[in-house]
């Protein structure tokens, strides 16, 4: 079944079809809601901000606008990695703020029905456990769906807006 067919099949609102932009991070595939993605940039120099929170890599100049870039690896509790050709900065909008997230690579846009999304295992007690919206098994690969709004806490979003 093609992606277009998948959209056509999903007439039921409860089984709504959503598009997810997938990216790779430490050999795992993550998905974020396409509606929150503004654009995907090649890696560009990120200017560090003195005194910025630990989860902030720095800022970039995006056509005259200053955009804060988040250290996604650090946020996800993963070890840092070297930047390579496939590294991307995904510009997203969450909590009424435009930020960038640094990822290993951007893969594709996938269509997922609501029924195809499973709940994430409920054993997490850490902060990062909160921003997993669900998981989906797609082509024998697990796609971890991220809730970008919960990527940072309310205080952190506030802190970010003041950088």
């Amino acid at each position, binding site marked *: 079944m093609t992606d277009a067919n998948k959209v056509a099949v999903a007439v039921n609102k409860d089984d709504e079809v959503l598009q997810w932009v997938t990216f790779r991070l*430490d050999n*795992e595939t993550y998905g974020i809601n396409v509606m929150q993605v503004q654009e995907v940039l090649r890696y560009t120099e990120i200017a560090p901000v003195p005194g910025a929170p630990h989860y902030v890599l720095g800022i970039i100049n995006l056509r005259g606008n200053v955009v804060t870039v988040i250290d996604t690896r650090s946020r*996800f*509790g*993963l070890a840092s990695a070297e930047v390579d050709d496939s590294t991307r900065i995904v510009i997203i909008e969450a909590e009424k703020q435009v930020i960038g997230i640094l990822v290993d690579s951007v893969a594709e846009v996938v269509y997922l029905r609501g029924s195809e999304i*499973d709940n*994430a*295992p*409920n*054993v*997490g*007690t*850490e*902060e*990062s*456990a*909160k*921003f*997993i919206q669900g*998981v989906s*098994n797609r082509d*024998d*690969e*697990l796609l*971890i769906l991220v809730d970008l709004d919960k990527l940072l806490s309310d205080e952190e979003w506030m802190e970010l807006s003041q950088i």
Partner: protein
Amino acid sequence: MTTSVDEAVFDYFSLLLTEVEDEPSIQVEAITADIAEQVVPEVISDGPSVEALKPDASNHEALQQESSKSVGYGNESVIEKPEAVETPRLQTQLKTQPQTETQALTKSKIRESDPHLDKMALEQLLAPVFKPEPQIETESVVKLKNQTLAKPKIKTTSAPDKVAVKPKVDVNLEKKVDIEQKQEQKAELKTQLGEIPPKVTKDLLETLDDEFQVLFFKVAGLTLAVPLVSLGGIVKIERINHIMGRPAWYKGVQTYRDTQLNIVDTGAWVMPEKYDKTLAESVNYQYVVLLEDSNWGLTCESLVNAVRITKSEVNWRSKAGKRPWLAGVVKEQMCGILHVQALIELLNSGLGSQDPVG
């Protein structure tokens, strides 16, 4: 035709009474208020209808006119007439507006200030005309007195009542808020850790036959046994997806037959105190031992064998204790035998082997 003095007075009152019905009662009110203000001004000032009771100049003039009018009715007892006029009017006023004590007090004051008035005679005379009048009068006086006396009482009691009630309400609200917060905390705990495990797990011995099979498997040099009745299957480790924000013993998710298996790092779960980085790196997990029909699987390095043993070959633990997941020790192999049901409950609760239960 001769008439007695009493008859004359009676006729006179009859006339007056018919006149009173037609006349507006404001004049009487004015008189009453005027006098009352002099007698008990503080009561009037406290009253709600002060404006209504206050006399104005026109009313006062009307009163004077009224007095002269009553004189003009022509009778022998000229001096008594004005006083006599006031009495029935006051009674009427009380009948129509029995709201304030002032009026009642005024009436009594007027009566006291009329030494020449023959009360007995008047009452006798008035009896046929106003039979219910004296009753109403006394009733109204009592009523008014009660009302006016009761009013401050209500005021004084109501104020502290309010004060007393307020904190009660606040306490209840606080309690309610506390309960709600506790419920929220409980709910949070439940969502984070899953279901709270039972303190005493179901006895494994009841579910096992006298002779039963167990599978032995090895993890970082440690041998563990699982009854075959509790074994959900064995799956080869392929690709385990790491999920962030999970405990150290949670290895990740592996897809198996369109379902996601929650893979437990057995070494990290069973012996976290010994499972350091060096040991973790040395371990080479090969298989996943599935627990009953749950989504939980224990990683293992190797599968030893499946052996038929009897219940007597196991040193069963009599109490669940701190490690409800450990059913006992197989004597010959000197290894722990798992209580799978309890283990599943602990894992569902997000608890490690050494986390406090219950």
